[in-house]
């Protein structure tokens, strides 16, 4: 931040401009003894006239627009810091194209511009156009942000820590990898999609990796079907988790269905 103001104790006012209350609950969290933002000098005040900083949440609905404008205008003329909390306030978030969301006429319709527009920045630019002073703005994205993330943002505002994130631009020079799986890629993608319906996105890659190892072992033997059944039985006995053994059985059936169809030259239902 250029022209860093000397901040000792920031008094903040909490303003909700149409948020779903998730970010507001996280703001309550940072004032509890566990996170305790007050040790950094943060104090929640009841009026914008006493506040140095405004903690803004929400995507700025049109009903809130004039109230929010009044509240920011009511703050003392300096430093008027805006702490933008949550994805909604940063750029509109999931509500970005909702009918009640305020957008400046200059911003136009949502296009291919980036950083994405929307949220409190529209109000701040309106205020700056009117000649009002608005101090430094700090963005804390997250839906909702963790309490630690808000603490980190406030600490950054006070000059206690440095920012960690940098904008990144990769081109073709970084190189390209096409990872090879032990089984046919077409079968792997089908199994992966099947597994998504059962266990979801988070655990499926680990389960599929284990399964592919078993398949690789079984395919080397003479009777792959019986061998795979035996290997999976052993695996299930070792894991002792009903959910994983259910997935393994399912994958086994699916694997033979797809593989038999492929080796017979038949078409199979690709996306189950």
């Amino acid at each position, binding site marked *: 931040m250029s022209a860093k103001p000397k901040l000792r104790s920031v008094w903040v006012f909490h303003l909700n401009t149409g948020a779903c209350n998730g970010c507001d609950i996280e703001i309550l969290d940072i004032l509890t003894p566990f996170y305790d933002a007050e040790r950094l000098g943060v104090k929640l005040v009841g009026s914008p006239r006493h506040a140095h900083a405004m903690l803004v949440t929400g995507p700025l609905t049109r009903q809130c627009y004039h109230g929010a404008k009044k509240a920011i205008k009511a703050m003392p003329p300096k430093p008027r810091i805006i702490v933008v909390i949550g994805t909604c306030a940063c750029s509109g978030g999931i509500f970005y194209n909702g009918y009640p969301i305020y957008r400046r006429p200059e911003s136009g319709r949502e296009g291919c511009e*980036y950083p994405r527009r929307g949220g409190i920045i529209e109000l701040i630019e309106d205020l700056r156009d009117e000649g009002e002073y608005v101090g430094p703005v700090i963005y804390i994205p*997250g839906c909702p942000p963790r309490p630690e993330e808000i603490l980190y943002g406030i600490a950054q505002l006070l000059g206690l820590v440095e920012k960690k994130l940098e904008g990144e631009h990769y081109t073709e020079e*970084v190189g390209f990898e096409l990872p090879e799986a032990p089984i046919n890629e077409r079968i792997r*993608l089908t199994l992966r999609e099947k597994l998504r319906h059962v266990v979801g*996105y988070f655990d499926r890659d680990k389960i599929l990796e284990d399964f592919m190892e078993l398949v690789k072992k079984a395919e080397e033997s003479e009777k792959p079907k019986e061998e795979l059944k035996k290997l999976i039985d052993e695996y299930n006995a070792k894991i002792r988790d009903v959910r994983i053994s259910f997935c393994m059985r399912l994958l086994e059936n699916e694997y033979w269905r797809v593989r038999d169809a492929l080796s017979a030259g038949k078409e199979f239902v690709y996306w189950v």
Partner: protein
Amino acid sequence: MPVTLRYPFTELEAPPEYRGLPHIDPKLCIGCGACVNACPPDAILRIDDYDRGTRKIVLDIGRCIRCARCEEVCPTGAIRLTNLFEAASPDRRDHIEVVELRLVRCKVCGNYTDFTERQVKKALQILPKEILEEEALEEKVFICRNCRRKGTVDATINATKEVVL
């Protein structure tokens, strides 16, 4: 015993299953745009530039709601939700991540097509080798949609002419 977290003055790690900032691995990304279609708040963009022959996949963390749908649909596992969370920044441009990939140039007309070179490589990996010959395929793949349509129509017309004559 004090209960307060010493957090901004110490390092802290989120649990492994925490859905934090998304990150695109540029080595794995093929630029297919599956994540762009899946993203509910339009945090990921696909921008094609047919003059320069590049496709940009742009990820804006400041618009992302951490729903992990992009991770769910990514065919190569390039986009992942890490367990990092410290994204606070005074500049919105710090939240942008761009992956710029080359588009395929049409062998016949020389214009840029609407798919990337990496997409072709991935598609060739998925296609069953028993059914299609790879050498014959590589001649047909690097052609834009218009030229391919033209070629099909010409071939059909020639075939009908031969039958008529």
